[in-house]
């Protein structure tokens, strides 16, 4: 699971051009949205697409999205349970 957390961390940082974020400092349990990594609704739309195109993990509703995107660890759990690629 830790490998998937790291993979997701680097994927998110590069896809959302978080140039100013140092991967080492990102806490896997910190919130992705709001004050944690500071992502917003535009990033949410991109992440939904990214999870589908990269892992085939479909986020069907905003509630599913809320729990999956709570933190990097919850996202890793969601991907591992729903990935098709």
């Amino acid at each position, binding site marked *: 699971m830790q490998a998937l957390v790291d993979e997701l961390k680097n994927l998110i940082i590069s896809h*959302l*051009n*978080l*140039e*100013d974020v140092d991967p080492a400092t990102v806490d896997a349990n910190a919130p992705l949205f709001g004050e944690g990594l*500071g992502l917003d609704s*535009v990033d949410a*739309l*991109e992440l939904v*697409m990214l999870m*589908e*195109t990269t892992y085939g993990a479909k986020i069907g509703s905003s509630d599913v999205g809320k729990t999956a995107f709570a933190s990097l660890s919850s996202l890793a759990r969601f991907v591992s349970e729903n990935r098709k690629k």
Partner: protein
Amino acid sequence: MSAVVTGMGVVSALGSGVEAFKAALQQGVNACAMHEFERMGGTKAIAPAYRAVAPDAKGLIDPRKLRRMDRLIRMAAVSARQALNMAGLQPERGDVDASRLGVVFGTAYGAIGTTQEFIDSWLKNGQRHASPLAFMSSVHGILASQVALDIGATGANLTLSQRDVSFEAALASALGLLESGRADAILVGGADELTGLLHEFASHFRYVENGPSAGCDPWSGEGRAIPGDGGAVLLLEREGGPRRALARVEQARVSRHDTGREILDDLNLGGVDLATSCRAGSRRSAPLEHARSGVLAERLAVPELSYRGNFGNFPSAGALQAVVNVLMLQGQVFAPLAGGRQRQDLVTGIGPPRRILHDAASVTGLHGAYILSAV
């Protein structure tokens, strides 16, 4: 009614920031260089261009905002911040009522690079997975929206697209908004990006030089244009405000030049002692440029200068020319470059201008003109 320029910003092949831009003009720096352009299919081509330097956002824009700004938007947003700094106006400090601070941009191609990225996203991932961020960043008005988002300007927010007179069209609208009391201050700018796709089409149809070149010669009339890109912004305010006025913008018009109506006849040409134009000297644009020079000569016995040999030929380069004109009104005349050589002969005996007419036109029939005067 006229407005005054109280700040300027520029990102160009001659440098990022007005100081670097001015120094390069004085020294006759030739910014035409061979650059790499990506061709569809992944191959690369090397061709001459005046490609703008990377916009220097350090200390100007919060890094967190930079991640949503591609190169074109950074050219616009960095120029806007430079202009505010030059004027000493900090929107965040409440120096101006944010609802009376407007942003008006002219751009011909707009976010054509991001538009291509958006199409590529559905080609790669399928039509159900077209990138939302690329779509929302590909709309033409993204330049003015992002600048307003960065500085918190909640006043008028417009983007205009009028090919080679895009900046002049933005200036005409900005003056109208100030004149009718709809804004107290407006960041008016122009920016365009030379992408691989644009260069590929332009070179395929022989509009642009493909082999090595010493640079654009606005007075040659043969050869092909040398493209470039960049952006510039003027901060316009109503006259009599607290900030130092660098120049006065009196009138600006945009219309079509093939309808028989000559907009120079709408302008007050009294006291104009210098004309600047968008001469680029390529075979394709030479007939129009000669015709425009003739129209100018009938009305004004003044020298006509163009600086496309210094910063390149692209649709919103009129914004860079406006910065040159304000600098000249402050007491210095730059010898324009032609094919890499400084044409001292064109400026010998010319004192610093008091009133400049700028005249621009596009081969598609559009015409733009404005008058700047010294304060």
